[in-house]
């Protein structure tokens, strides 16, 4: 195993870079990071559209969500890679194809998480914001969404971890991300498949685990002040019973 690492570590990390296109783990991290940063705002926008009071906004987006949610990610990637160029006439290269597919697919899943988060915020919160004179958008922006995002954090992290792992599907369209590189290494050393793919698994695990640690710390920090302190229930307070 050590000799595999010694021989291929640089190839594993960056692919053929700088003598060729960037690949390997660096490309995976780049793809995942870009997907998440683009998919989150898109997901929030779609989630808001899902609860919009305007049917003209709500219905088409709801349809889109149902459609994309009903097909496998692999299909979305194939669409983006084979189908889209026939419409636009522009042949897209693998990285942007994969990025588009991941953003579209994840935005839809995030939209449902966002919607659930918004619906989960007590109705009185929205009402009291509106009663102060804040409009729909401001009430969402300043009162409902901040609370919703907090409660959504665990589900968001779940989806983010999925996204990181889904980048491996780039393999199928020849994107030289880390799974592709691992397969390349495997064909070169071809008697050590177990070690190569164990390393690959560890790599993904490390990425996802670090993400959940960051999220955990974030969650703790967000909850430090605003969570209700444990209040002593009246019944077990050491008071004398006035009825006795």
């Amino acid at each position, binding site marked *: 195993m050590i000799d595999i690492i010694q021989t291929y570590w640089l190839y594993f990390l960056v692919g053929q870079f700088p003598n060729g296109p960037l690949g390997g783990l660096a490309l995976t991290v780049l793809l995942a990071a870009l997907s998440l940063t683009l998919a989150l705002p898109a997901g929030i926008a779609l989630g808001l559209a899902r609860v919009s009071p305007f049917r003209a906004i709500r219905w088409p987006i709801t349809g889109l969500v149902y459609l994309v949610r009903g097909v496998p990610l692999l299909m979305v990637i194939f669409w983006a890679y084979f189908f889209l160029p026939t419409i636009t006439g522009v042949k897209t290269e693998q990285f942007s194809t994969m990025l588009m597919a991941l953003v579209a697919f994840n935005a839809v899943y995030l939209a449902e998480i966002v919607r659930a988060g918004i619906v989960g915020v007590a109705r009185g919160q929205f009402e009291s914001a*509106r009663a*102060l004179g804040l409009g729909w958008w401001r009430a969402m922006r300043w009162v409902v969404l901040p609370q919703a995002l907090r409660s959504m954090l665990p589900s968001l992290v779940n989806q983010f971890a999925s996204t990181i792992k889904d980048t491996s599907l780039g393999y199928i369209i020849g994107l030289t991300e880390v799974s592709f590189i691992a397969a390349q290494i495997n064909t070169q050393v071809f008697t050590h498949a177990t070690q190569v793919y164990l390393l690959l698994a560890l790599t993904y695990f490390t990425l996802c685990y670090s993400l959940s640690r960051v999220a955990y710390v974030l969650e703790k920090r967000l909850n430090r002040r605003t969570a209700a302190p444990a209040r002593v229930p009246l019944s077990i307070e050491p008071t004398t019973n006035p009825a006795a």
Partner: protein
Amino acid sequence: MIQFDNVNKWYGNYHALVDVSETIAQGEVVVVCGPSGSGKSTLIRTINRLEPIDSGTISLHGADIHARGVDVNQFRSHIGFVFQQFNLFPHLSVLQNCTLAPVALRGLKPAQARDKALALLERVGLAAKADAFPSELSGGQQQRVAIARALAMEPPVMLFDEPTSALDPEMVGEVLMVMRDLVRDGMTLVVVTHEMGFAREVAHRVLFMDQGRILERAEPHAFFNAPQHPRAKQFLADIRSPFARGD
């Protein structure tokens, strides 16, 4: 100041407000009481359009609140509303709860809004809690902050929807005290409450509602000592029975 003209409201087949007509004058303190389900909360919630109405008009200073195309946010920013469940924003500090709307809607500079909010918190006796979060306060304190939050918009009228009903009994007094203070300032108040002591002491007029109708309107003294309508007599007898909370 606030005028109801033949207002009707339905929840499906349930007739929640039946031909309600009423005028509330500037500076008047009106207590709305009645059994649960009588429509008193619905009535007060229609004043700032938290509930839509099906027919009739409600106007504030002559302007129709429920008309199509009116800027409802503009109306609401001039009508303070205090909820039974306080509804403070839990992710914001007490001070931020009171500065959010004035900064967003009145264009106040953060420093101005802060000074004003602190003055209001002082008035409700909670200046020391400005940096606390709502979850760190008792129910009575939360409701006092909710009143300060509404006052921060300088509304000429305040609506209270059972402001003390969700409170432990020992906290009711502190909230009523703040409300008395508003009455002393000559503010227009519409209060839905079961606190008959409060009604008797500070209200200028009591409206008694049952089954979506205003059945009796009277000065507190007259209402409590000589109710006219049989249902009002029954209601007062019920709340005076030794096993119910009343005055």
